[in-house]
């Protein structure tokens, strides 16, 4: 009897491991192995068919820090990150707060509207914004007819305005997405908690900072990590909205790496791998910092 019990347990244990195997193998082969390969390739140089070790080994990395264009792509990516992510998350929080009011009518309608941009792909909305802000586009038409602009302005042809439009487009696409997280979190907070705060004489500002923010902290941290992660990997918008232009002034890191790997007539796998490993380290560091911040405040 005892023996039989043991063999059943062993069978169950084995079944458990079998269930994990396909997913585990795929992650190892499709994520972990390639990232190690990327690290190795980043020390190599030459055309993809005849690659050899770089000498000195760190040559690609030395080159990276001297590459003004790559540094600009890093700068652009961080600009999008620093400007866009806070505005987006604050706006998402405000919207979630408003929509969580139990006296508000047409809640479902408003929520659907704000959430709607998530229904289109990144390429689609990039092309929509590209068309809206084209020199002969609707935005110019509206701004000139109401007299704000004297003549059509080439929004995507000037570095400053092109960056602003990427940020506006990102805000449009992702604010509703983050709002959904906050709304789900807010709905998880018991209404009685707020009632109690009200009885204790807390105003809505205090209620927000003393109750909502601490209770939503895990959600807020997660949206931060996701947004940072997403922004560091921006690609579709840079490629399709501005093509990285004008004169590479809006190019992102991923876009530049893509151009170095699969751009027309270029296959600089060694150098591109060094750049991509740099992005990997950035993503890992920022994720670690975020986790740490999340932990110590507890």
């Amino acid at each position, binding site marked *: 009897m005892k023996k039989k019990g043991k063999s059943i347990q062993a069978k169950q244990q084995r079944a*458990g491991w079998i269930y994990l195997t396909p997913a585990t193998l795929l992650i190892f082969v499709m*994520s972990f192995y390639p990232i190690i390969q990327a690290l190795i390739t980043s020390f190599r140089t030459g055309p993809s068919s005849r690659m050899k070790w770089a000498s000195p080994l760190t040559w690609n990395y030395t080159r990276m820090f001297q590459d003004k264009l790559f540094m600009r792509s890093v700068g652009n990516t961080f600009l999008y990150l620093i400007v866009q992510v806070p505005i987006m998350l604050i706006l998402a929080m405000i919207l979630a707060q408003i929509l969580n009011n139990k006296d508000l009518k047409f809640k479902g309608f408003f929520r659907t509207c704000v959430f709607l941009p998530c229904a289109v792909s990144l390429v689609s909305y990039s092309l929509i914004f590209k068309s809206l802000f084209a020199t002969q586009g609707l935005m110019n038409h509206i701004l000139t007819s109401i007299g704000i602009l004297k003549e059509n302005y080439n929004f995507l042809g000037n570095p400053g305005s092109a960056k602003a439009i990427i940020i506006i487009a990102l805000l449009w696409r992702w604010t509703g997405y983050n709002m959904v997280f906050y709304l789900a979190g807010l709905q998880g907070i018991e209404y009685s908690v707020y009632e109690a705060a009200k009885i204790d004489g807390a105003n809505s500002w205090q209620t927000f900072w003393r109750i909502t923010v601490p209770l939503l902290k895990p959600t807020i941290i997660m949206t931060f990590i996701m947004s940072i992660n997403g922004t560091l990997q921006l690609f579709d918008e840079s490629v399709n909205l501005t093509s990285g232009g004008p004169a590479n002034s809006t190019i992102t890191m991923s876009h530049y790496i893509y151009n170095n*790997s699969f751009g027309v007539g270029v296959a600089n796998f060694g150098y591109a791998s060094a750049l991509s490993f740099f992005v990997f380290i950035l993503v890992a560091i920022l994720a670690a910092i975020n986790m740490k911040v999340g932990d110590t405040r507890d």
Partner: protein
Amino acid sequence: MIKKRGSVVQRRLIPSYIFLIIISFISVFPLYWMVTAATNSSVDVARGKIVFGTKLMENMRNLLAGQDLWGAMKNSFIFATVQTLVALFVCSLAGFGFELYHDKNKDRLFSLLLMAMMVPGVATMIPLFKMMSRMGFLNTVMGFMLPAISTPFLIMMFRQNSRNFPVDIMEAARIDGLSEFGIYWKMFFPVMKATFAAAAVITFMNAWNAYLWPRVVLTDKKAQTMPILIANLSAGYVVDYGMLMLGVLFCSIPTMIIFFILQKQFAEGITGSVK
């Protein structure tokens, strides 16, 4: 008395309503404009026409003349559907195993797998491209989906959501002679239907909208998906806005339908493992 209080409350909410109306308008307008632009000529679009026009068929003819629209739609449908089915099976099985058969070693493995979340797509694209071309998977559904099947996000989603799975019933089922896989198929799957639905919606959407990796692995025009097709539409020097927006509309119709019918599942799919 109660009515009066209600109207006071509603009056206090007027700024909220105004704010929501403005944000809703901004959110919806670009998509409304995209649909109208698909029915107008490029000249009218540039002139700022924002009502529906009569040039839909003309735009359609132009689009079909230059692009293999139906081919790309078919590719997108097949690739996204196959990826969704396989990813759901692989990740639900893993989530099931991690949660309901868990022990210390499996928990350690789980933490290790979570680290894959930090690996950016752009960093693995070159090695994966080499791997796929060695295996002959370029321009195939295998090449398209293999890197996207097993994600920590989906595994975690299934794991977290099976926290409340009735473990006692599993014991009872075993005594009744149900095999371990029978427990997954006959018990786990029906109980977890809501999670499967949410996971299916989010996976399909992601697969349909994917751009960077498909652009790398689908080098042949015959294998291109909708996002690649519409990206190519705008690459020329002169852009036909009517035709471009019609292409964007085609790319967006399936995901918009899913959004409107399965919005709840979509929202659950996005928030996924947060519980």
